[in-house]
């Protein structure tokens, strides 16, 4: 008998364009990006790394609330986002605030989301996205629906959703990719495999050697990508987008990455489940270091340019925090007003009680 599983698994090799030294190892797959595009990708990654550092510091000072660190995942998050267009719809997980910011969510609103203020969840007009999902996997079936909606409307746009390696264990993950396949939804499913679901290593999530191969069971395309290589992530997402809008169905992309920080800033201690060796091994693959070398070798990047981005990020974070501080305090009555299109009688009664309570 043929060993089907082995045959399938062996075909899911990790797709890479830039190796850890910043050398192009897959010239044929090199995406068609202008020098300015390449520099913009670098700016976004550096900016996001600084934003992460500042967010962690602000959280420690008690000036931010819920925060899931992003350092290490910049190539996965921003490389995939760079392949999108404004009309594409993002359904993020809770670590995917950077994609929302680059899709148009003002920074001060991202901070309000962290602080638990509902204005942080109000996407500005024209920003095609919803706020980060907290229930792992719930966004995946929804993304199948958005991608189907776009198909029904004949729109040249895709839905993209993000989850982690743990998310790929949820029932909704399988239902989502299966529905999308069955309906030919214009959807891209990105699993950022950062090796740990809080503390549980990916080896304990599944007997499957890759998450990408799960696409096979749903009858859709799947690819495993070096998630520390921004060009590979970009190229894979770009191709998935073209496939989706040309009617060739959804794609599952697994990006192999690592979060340097804790799961969230709410007391997770990664030293309980990760070794320093593993940390070092992954930091040697750093997406920014690698891409910087690549750009420097092309004469496209300098220390001054990097410092400019760092200064800009710091200034904008400062201004955004100030703006977040200036927002009116959130009230229970505000929340009552947005529960339904029209306030039902029973809630009207309760609203009066709270209005009185809040006026004191």
């Amino acid at each position, binding site marked *: 008998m043929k060993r089907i599983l082995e045959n399938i698994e062996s075909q899911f090799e990790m797709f890479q364009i830039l190796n850890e030294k910043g050398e192009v190892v897959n010239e044929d797959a090199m995406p068609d990006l202008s020098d300015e595009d390449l520099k913009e990708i670098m700016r976004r990654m550096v900016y996001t790394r600084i934003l992460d550092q500042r967010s962690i510091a602000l959280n420690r000072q008690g000036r931010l609330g819920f925060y899931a660190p992003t350092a290490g995942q910049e190539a996965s998050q921003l490389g995939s986002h760079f392949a999108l267009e404004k009309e594409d*719809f993002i*359904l993020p997980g809770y670590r995917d605030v950077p994609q929302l910011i680059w899709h148009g969510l003002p920074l001060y609103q991202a901070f309000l989301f962290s602080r638990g203020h*509902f*204005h942080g*969840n*109000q*996407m500005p007009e024209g920003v095609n996205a*919803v*706020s980060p999902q907290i*229930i792992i996997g*719930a966004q*995946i*079936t*929804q*993304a*199948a*629906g*958005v*991608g*189907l*909606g*776009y198909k*029904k*409307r004949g729109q040249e746009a895709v*839905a993209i959703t993000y989850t982690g390696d743990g998310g790929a264990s949820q*029932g*909704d993950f399988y*239902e*989502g990719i*299966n*529905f999308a396949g*069955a309906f030919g939804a214009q959807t891209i499913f990105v699993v950022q495999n950062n090796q740990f679901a809080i503390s549980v290593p990916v080896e304990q999530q599944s007997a499957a050697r890759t998450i990408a191969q799960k696409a096979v069971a749903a009858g859709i395309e799947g690819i495993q990508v070096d998630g520390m290589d921004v060009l590979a992530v970009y190229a894979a997402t770009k191709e998935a987008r073209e496939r989706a809008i040309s009617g060739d169905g959804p794609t599952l992309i697994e990006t192999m990455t690592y979060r340097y920080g804790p799961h969230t800033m709410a007391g997770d201690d990664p030293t309980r489940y990760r070794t320093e060796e593993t940390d070092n091994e992954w930091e040697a693959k750093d997406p920014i270091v690698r891409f910087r070398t690549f750009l420097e070798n092309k004469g496209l990047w300098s220390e001054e340019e990097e410092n400019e981005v760092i200064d800009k990020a710091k200034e904008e974070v400062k201004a955004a925090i100030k703006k977040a501080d200036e927002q009116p305090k959130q009230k229970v009555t505000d*929340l009552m*007003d*947005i*529960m*339904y*299109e029209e306030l*039902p*009688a*029973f809630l009207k009664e309760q609203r009066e009680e709270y209005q009185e309570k809040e006026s004191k």
Partner: protein
Amino acid sequence: MAQMTMIQAITDAMRTELKNDENVLVYGEDVGLNGGVFRATEGLQKEFGEDRVFDTPLAESGIGGMSIGLALTGFRPVPEIQFFGFVYETMDAINGQMARYRYRSGGTRPMPITVRSPFGGGVHTPELHADSLEGLMTQQPGLKVVIPSNPYDAKGLLIQSIRDNDPVIFLEHMKLYRSFREEVPEEEYTIELGKAEVKREGKDVTLVAYGAMVHTALKASEELEKDGIEAEVIDLRTVAPIDYETIIESVQKTNRAVVLQEAQKQAGVAAQIVSEIQEKAILHLEAPVLRVTAPDTVYPFSQAEQVWLPNHNDIVEKVNRVMNF
């Protein structure tokens, strides 16, 4: 005017809205070609095409989540959960997600979704087909829950539910699907959600009911009339939000009330109504407000369901207790 069963009225409501609004989509397991296991969507795929009326893979959570995605792209989905006992499979999509979306998006992402589903006892179904699970849904802020008791209401309420910009759980009692016909206008009309109807006027006791129990209440009222007790019967039609105004007004007149539900006793719609009556009308009451419900077990295997389900004798007995308090 045409004579229609409740299932025909439901089909007619969907046909009306599929015609009125190209954003309306009707789908679910066996909903397309087969027209639904109860034929609720009979002929709709043929009339409106596979793009608007279609079958889905067999996965309720997927149906729920996909509905949210379709609503995010401006559609007005009318998914079917084949039997409401299967709702547990999609509780996160409905209660955790759909119900909260308007709120979680700061009021920017409405969910104009109508989840239709058959439920209700007395028709010898296997496990998890007949359960009255409306109480689980009424506890969830953000959802409206509608339960019609007759063909006329079913059409008007379903059209209104589909037009509503908030998620509506529309529950159809299986026993009522084909139990009787009545006159239903062929043209479109709507019935406001959250408005009860007084089905029978009476001065002695108020019976509050919904779904199939409305008919049980009416049957009990006939019995009671023989003993000179005039019961007022209220059909809630919507169990979230509940029309407390109509209930309180009636109780202020009759001074006695018995609240009925096919669901188990604990923490249900009836318990909520009893609380509200004592909060708003305690000085009008001549007797404690009693409930007629099923006992607090899981829904029984079908051989025991006729005893398990509350019947008109149970109502008569409880009414006699409040009359003689």
